[in-house]
Structures are given as structure tokens and as C-alpha cells.
């Protein structure tokens, strides 16, 4: 194929333009469009049991995927003007807590109905403890008539980026996560396995908590779970599209352990 001079020059200029693409560090539309996982502050001394966890998982997400993250550790209250900053929210806790105010429940309901995604992680260290009991109580008010059910291992959450078996965290109290599903998506997830405990690192980058019983391999699985959560929040059932299925089925033959 022979090029005209105009085509050649255009190609050179375009190549130069491609090389001059803005660097990743220059955030495109500011932190407002970058992916963030705000943590909900509520009335309890145990609302933030793993202060470094979210920042660490966001860094892992940015390193491993194409998602641009906001590294700021944002904390929000259960008010509409706070919750509607971004469609994802996380709740942590390690003990039971007092009932939320009706306005807080209403704000959370609106958030979820608008497409918001809520991940709840228990650091209590036991299944069906007081924190879980409090969460179930509150969710029954936030979403009356809806209840938590175990998420199937075939759910797209377990293949949105990594192919994962189980729902690993710092502990392995349960091999599944519980979810409230509506509008065709898992809108609320609950893990009893202390995922944030597996993600948390100190300022030197060392893990803050040991992972039991699987050790560092289990920690890696917990990090992958965090990545998958972010991917699920942003892509929902994208990996259930027909075009992906043959590849996933083939790769499932090699189970990840």
C-alpha cells in the first residue's frame, strides 16, 4: 500500500498525538469520577474496625485493573447529600449497635434504589454475632420485605475479574456471602469473614492481621475478592454476557485454590 504525502504526515502527527496522550496520573475529570469506596460512619464505637483496609484495596484495584481510583479515605454519614456522591458504600463493624434513625434508613433506601451498591463486612470474628444481628435488623427496615440469602457460587461476582471459589476474608467462617438482590442485581452484600482484615496493612505495607486458616494464599484470595467487588460494582453482570461464557467455562476447568 502506498501512502500519499498527506496520509503520511497525518499518520506521523497522529502517532505523535498518541504518544502525547495525557499520563494516567493527571486525573481526567478530577477525583469526582475516580472510583472510591466511602465508609459509612454510624453511631457505634466499632464503625471503623479496619481503618487502613479500604485505602489498601483501592491501591490493589488500581494496580491490577484499569480502574482509576481516588486514594482519599472518604467517610460519609447516612444522609442523602453524602451517600449520593458515588454509587458504592461500605459498612464495617465488630460489635452490635443501636438502631439507626429513620432518616438514615430512608437515605440508605433511596441510595440502594437509585442503583447504589452496599458491601457490609464483619470484623466481629464470629458468624451470627451481634454485629450481624444488628445489620440484619437495620436492613429489614431499610428494605422491608427483602432478606439476605446466600449468593450462589455461580454468581457473576465470583468471575467479574478473578475466578474465585468461596468468599475469603481474614477468616473462613462461611464459604459464601449473603446478599439482598433486587432489580436483577445484588444490591447489598454481607461477609462474615472480615475481608477488610485481610486487606489492612500498616504504613510500612505489612499486613496488620494474620489470615486463618489459609495464610497468605487466603489473603491473596481476599484481595481478589475486593477487586471482584469493585468490578461487580462497576460492571454488574458484564461477565455473564454470552461472549465471555466459553472462555470462563474453559478456565473453570482449572479451579483456583
Amino acid at each position, binding site marked *: 500500500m502506498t501512502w500519499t504525502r498527506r496520509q503520511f504526515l497525518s499518520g506521523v502527527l497522529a502517532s505523535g498525538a498518541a504518544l502525547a496522550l495525557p499520563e*494516567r496520573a493527571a486525573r481526567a475529570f478530577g477525583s*469526582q469520577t475516580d*472510583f472510591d469506596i466511602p465508609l459509612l460512619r454510624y453511631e457505634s464505637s466499632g464503625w471503623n474496625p479496619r481503618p487502613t483496609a479500604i485505602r489498601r484495596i483501592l491501591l490493589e484495584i488500581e494496580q491490577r485493573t484499569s480502574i482509576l481510583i481516588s486514594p482519599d479515605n472518604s467517610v460519609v454519614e447516612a444522609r442523602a447529600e453524602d451517600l449520593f456522591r458515588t454509587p458504592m458504600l461500605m459498612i464495617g463493624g465488630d460489635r452490635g449497635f443501636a438502631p439507626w434513625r429513620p432518616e438514615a434508613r430512608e437515605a440508605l433506601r*433511596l441510595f440502594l434504589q437509585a442503583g447504589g451498591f452496599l458491601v457490609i463486612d464483619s470484623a466481629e470474628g464470629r458468624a451470627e454475632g451481634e454485629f450481624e444481628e444488628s445489620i440484619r435488623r437495620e436492613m429489614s427496615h431499610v428494605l422491608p420485605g427483602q432478606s439476605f440469602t446466600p449468593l450462589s457460587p455461580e454468581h457473576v461476582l465470583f468471575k467479574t475479574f478473578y475466578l474465585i471459589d468461596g468468599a475469603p476474608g481474614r477468616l473462613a467462617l462461611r464459604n459464601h456471602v449473603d446478599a439482598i438482590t433486587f432489580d436483577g442485581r445484588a444490591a447489598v452484600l454481607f461477609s462474615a469473614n472480615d475481608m477488610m482484615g485481610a486487606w489492612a496493612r500498616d504504613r510500612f505495607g505489612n499486613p496488620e492481621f494474620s489470615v486463618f486458616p489459609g495464610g497468605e494464599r487466603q489473603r491473596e484470595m481476599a484481595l481478589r475478592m475486593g477487586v471482584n467487588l469493585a468490578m461487580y460494582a462497576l460492571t454488574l453482570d458484564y461477565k455473564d454476557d454470552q*461472549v465471555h461464557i466459553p472462555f470462563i467455562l474453559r478456565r473453570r476447568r482449572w479451579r483456583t485454590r
Partner: protein
Amino acid sequence: MDPTLRTSTEGELLFIGNWGPTALTLFIAVSLALLALTALDLRGLPRPRLLLLMTLRTLALGAALLLLMEPALELRSVRTLPNQVPVLVDTSASMRIASEGGGSRAEVAAAQLDAWRSFLLAGDGDHRPTLYHVDEDMRRLDLRSIHDALPTDGERTHLLEALEALAEELDPRDVGAVILLSDGGDNGVLGQRTPRGAPLDADLRRRVEALGFPIHTFATSSGTGLRDIAVLRVRHEDFAFVRNAARFSADVLVVGDFGASLPVHLVRDGVRVQTRTLTLEPGRQVYTVDFEVTPETIGREIYAVEVTPQAGEALESNNAHFFLLRVIRDKVRVLHVAGRPSWDQRYLRQLLKNNPNVDLIAFHILRTDNSVQRVPQHELSLIQFPTEDLFQNELASFDVVIFQNFTHVPYHMRHFLPGIARYVRGGGALVMIGGDQSFSSGGYALTPMHDILPVELAAPTTQRSLIDDTPFRPLLTDAGQRHPITRVDPEGERNRTIWRELPPVPGTNLVLGARDDATVLLEHPDRQGAGGAAMPVMAVREVERGRTMALTIDGSFRWSFGTLAHGASPRAYASVWNNAIRWLIRDPELNLVRVDLPTTVSRPGERLQAQVRFFDNDYSPASERPVLLELYHRPLEPYWRDPPERLWQEERVTDATGRERVDVPLVQPGVYELRGRFLDTEGPAYAGSDAFLVLEGSLELRDLRPRPDLLEQLSLLSGGQHWGPAPTARIPTLRPPRAVEVDRRQVVDLWSHPGVLLFFLLLLGAEWTLRRRWGRL
């Protein structure tokens, strides 16, 4: 006085006395008692004398009874009216077909009428014939005019309906009989519900019997010697989905010997697309042929199922059956490519996926070459990005391609960009949505993609910022107020309010401005483009046969997510994107030139009364614009040889409404197309058309086989006679007239007549005399 009327006098005996049955019974009982006493009194008399006296006594008592009942005579002067004899002559189009004697069926009927001419003209004393046309309705026919050929222009034959109308108009008791001259080819309820050779069903029988008069039927043809091929009907849906199989099923009638086989063709827009071979069987006349096609383009298609005319056919025009098929889109195929996962991409994908009219193919870049890879490939769910499949092999199969914050550079797609531009120019649609990897930031300046976008891009340099991350609320332009994409509420002020109150978006890609031929729907409130005009935020453009849209923000999802925070409806987001998809795929409802036809099938002689609506690019009614209206015609015949002929055209200048009315006659059958286009702008977006058919009232000339069986059944059930096709001079049996008119009426009292009294007295006197003579007083 009418000399046809007969006058006579009738009498009737009446009894005026109003004695009740009790009184009469009592009188009779007393009379019997008297007779018994008389017999007792006269015993011993010789028998003859006894009988004579008893007779006289009985007669006297009887006379007394009669007098009590006051007999009278009612005399009436009566005029007898001749009853009606309606003669119904079938004047439908099938009557022009040849009968077995050589002449047409109508000529056979005329010969029969001629044989009865004197009766038909003058009647007889008791019967008055009246002549009627009968086809799809019934009208009086002047016998004096039928020395010329009988008319045969009726489009349908409804025999039972005509007879029932007659029964409503006349008192069946005053009908001597109905005489029906027809070939029996009925396409009303009689013919439709009665298979050939089968008896009428119970309901039809009841209706015939309820008519109340005999029907004499004369069959103008038995069908012997008829040779004809006809496509009776084609079973088809009114619409088909593009790229989906559509099936048609045709019934073909073959009457007569046409060899061992016949080809049956399916023709689309004048071009044969399929042929089936019909294997002919002795004794069989009706065959079913199936076709299957897959329409490739959206719009109206004219199909015909046809059989090549054969020598000796009674009629060739029924060898083809035309029909219109509307081809619509079933699902819009959308390719959604996102450069990275984001909330904006998530909300758009979810909206498209939840749209039942969209078939979504999505590819999102979940990881880049800069991403850290710590795991083996088989532990990931990621797949290769199939650029060649998407942007070369399969590109034409998509109706809309969306690039959302997607740069081509890392995927070495440069050589696909010209093909994408060609795809758009050839009729495809492209949307570019903003983000850090889009527009100039995505490396699209100075590429073929730049040439098709509705915005001008700056060549990226390290000195110039290509993005402004200041949150802002886009402003709705005047064009946006009217354009179907951004008109989320039909009420103007409410639409403006919705846009004013939407949440702000977090920044925008920077562009130099809108293309000259682009339409800006949203603009930046503060930033200007290179030319000083407000910088476009959403713009659309016609690119030859395709369309493009640019949205320079990546936070439109906030029009959904953010609105709910304030309890507002998120419908603006869904409306904008659903409207955008419709506009991009050229939804006919959003064309700039729209032809509104009242119907898709008309008849010759009717008028086309339609309107053509013209819109500007911003969808305001095109005012003061020069436009051309044209009507094209193509005849209905096998092998459409000739290009369409322009029958009518008119140049106009639109008024403020942008509507142009068309009112032209439709003289001949055929395929018509009404077209409208702007005269001052070129391009497929600036023209519109729609097609329709003009067909003869074709039911009558589809199946030419006569139905003497129907006529015979009408006669049988009504008590009439059936004959034909040879005419007879004998008038069939007609019922005598019933109708009377009482002219004068007179009542004559018999009981008060002196003779009656005298008679009574004579009886009494005779008895008395004889009694005296015989010594019994």
C-alpha cells in the same frame, strides 16, 4: 284507476249479537227441552206426522236462535294487487367470463331476460316483475336499457345479503317469487362459508328459509371448459423483522389441463427472488406453495406471488397476487466499548441491557498493559479484546457503535479507523462519550474518526489541556429544546425546567467547536469554542447516510443517580439515551421528512389524500423551505419491466407548519410511491417516501369457477326451481297475489229483514195448523 288492478266484491257472514256462551248454552238447553216435551206430547201420532211436526218445531227453534244471534252480511269491494317478482341479475365482474356456449355469462343472462321480455316489460294481471342489478349491493335496473350489454363492473357478489335486503324492503307475502340470474360466484357469506359441493350450514339454511319467498335460480355457467390459473390468496403477516425469516403461503388455483407442472414465482420489488415448481395432479385444483425470505433492509417491500400466464386462460390478471410487507427492526444491535469500568459506563450499560429493544454487545477494558499481572491467565475471567472481529468483520452488523472513554491507541486500531468512518458514512451510527481517554485525549484528532464527529478536535499537545474538570450544568440550546434526543418532556417549559434542575456533571473534554453542519443540543455555560460560540457538550450530525453523536462529559449517569437523591424522577437519563438510540438508527418516527399515508391499499378511482411533513435539523417544522412532492407509479403485472413512472409532481414552499397536503386521483392499479424531499439540501436524511398499493376489487376475479351448486341449494331450500345455462321461455311458477285492498265496506243486517221474520212465522203457523188438523192442539 290502474287497469292492472282487478276489482271484485266479497261477502262475509257475521253474527252481531253478543250473547255470551252461557246464554246461548242456556237457550240451546231450553230448546232441547222443548223439543223433548214436544216429542212426548206428540207420541202416538203416526210416524210421518210426528217427524213433520218435530221438523217444523226444530226449524222454528233454530230460526229463533239465529234471530237471537242477529246475523248480518258484510260486503266488501276488493281490489287485488299483483304481487312483486324481483328479477335479480348478477352484474359482477365474473359475469364477463366466457360461458360454455361461447358468449359471456352476462350474455347468457341477457338471453334469458330476452326470452321473457314481454313478461318483464308488462307483467301479467297478478304479477309485476322488477329488475335489479346485484353485485356487492342491489340497484334497480331498467329493462329498456338492457338491449345493450349488461353491465359487469361489480367488484363483489353478495347474493344472500341482497336477498335479505329484498326481504326487508318487501313483504315476502307479496312476492310471487324471486328470480336470480347469476354464475353463483358469491364472495359474501354464502360463498365464504360453503365449500364447493358442500351443503349450506344450519345457520345459512335457516336464513334462506326465513326469507319467506321462493327463489328460482338460473345458472349462467356450469364451469365446463373453463381454463384458468389464479393465485387465490397469500397468507402473510403484515410486518416482518429485518434479518429474520418471513414466511408466506400461497393458494394457487389450477382449473383445466396445464401439463404436469407449473412454476410459481415470488417477486420482490419487481425482481424474482424465489421459484417453486407445482406438480399438478389430475382431479386436484387448489395447491399450496410456501416461500421464506429474509428481508435485509427496513421499510416497505412490495411482493407478488405469480404464475406465468398460459395459453387459453380465461383471465391473466389473476395470475399474480400482490401484497405489502413492512419490514421493521426487531432489536437494535449496539456495540458498547468502554475504555475502563466507570459509573458512567455501568449506568449506560445497564440502561441498554434493560431495554428489550436492544441487543447489546459490550466490551469493557478491565485491565491495561500497565496493570500488574500476578496470577496465571487461567485464574482470570478476562478475554482478549477482539478488535478485528468487532471493527472489521462484524462492524456492519451493528446499528450503533458507542465509544465510551475509549482510546484506540493501545490496541493498535489505527488501521480500523477508516473502516469505522466508512461504516458511518454507509448508514451506521457512532457515539463518542467523554472521559480521559476520549476525543483528543483518545488520539482521535487528525484521524478519519475526526472527520465524522460533530465536533472539531484540537490536536493534542503537552501544552494544551484537553480536559476541564470543573463541575458544571450543561445548558439546553434552542435546538436541544426541540430535538427528539433532548426533548425529554413534550411540554416546552417543563422540558427546560428538567434540564435546568439536573445535577451538575464533573467536567468535560475540550473541543474546538461544532462542525458547521452539526446540531448542538447542549452547550457549556462558561466555556467557548475556538470560534467564540459556546463550547458544545452534546452535538449530533448527519454524515452522508449515517449519524454521529458526541457527548463530551463522562458523568451523565448523575442525571439518573443524582436526581433520586432529591426525590426527582431519573427519567431524563433514560429518555436521553433511549431517544438517542432511536435517532441514531433513523427510527421512522424521527425522520425529517415523513410521509403519512391513510392506508396501504386503495382501489382505482379513489383519491390519495395524504400529507408529507417536513422538519428542520432541530426538528422544528420546516418553514419557508422549498420542497418537492412526487407520486410514482409502477403497473401491476408480472416481470416489472419498466422503471417507475412519475405521475405527478409539485414544487412548493412550506409554510410555518411544515405540512404539505396531497390530494391526487388514483386511476389505475399499481404500486405507488409518494416522495417528499427538500430542494435546498442533499442527503438521505432530507428525503422520505412511503409506498402503497392500488388494487382492483380483486375478490371477484380471483376464483372464476361458477357456483351452480349454491344456486341450486337456494332454490331447493326456498321451494324454487333451478335451471341453466340454456334459457327457457317458460316463466317459472309464481305464487298468486295475496294482497287485497278493501275499497268499500257495507254491513247488511239479515236478522231484521222482513223475510226472516215471515219465515219464522210461517214455520210456527204451519205447525199450529197441522197440530190442529191432527188433533194435537
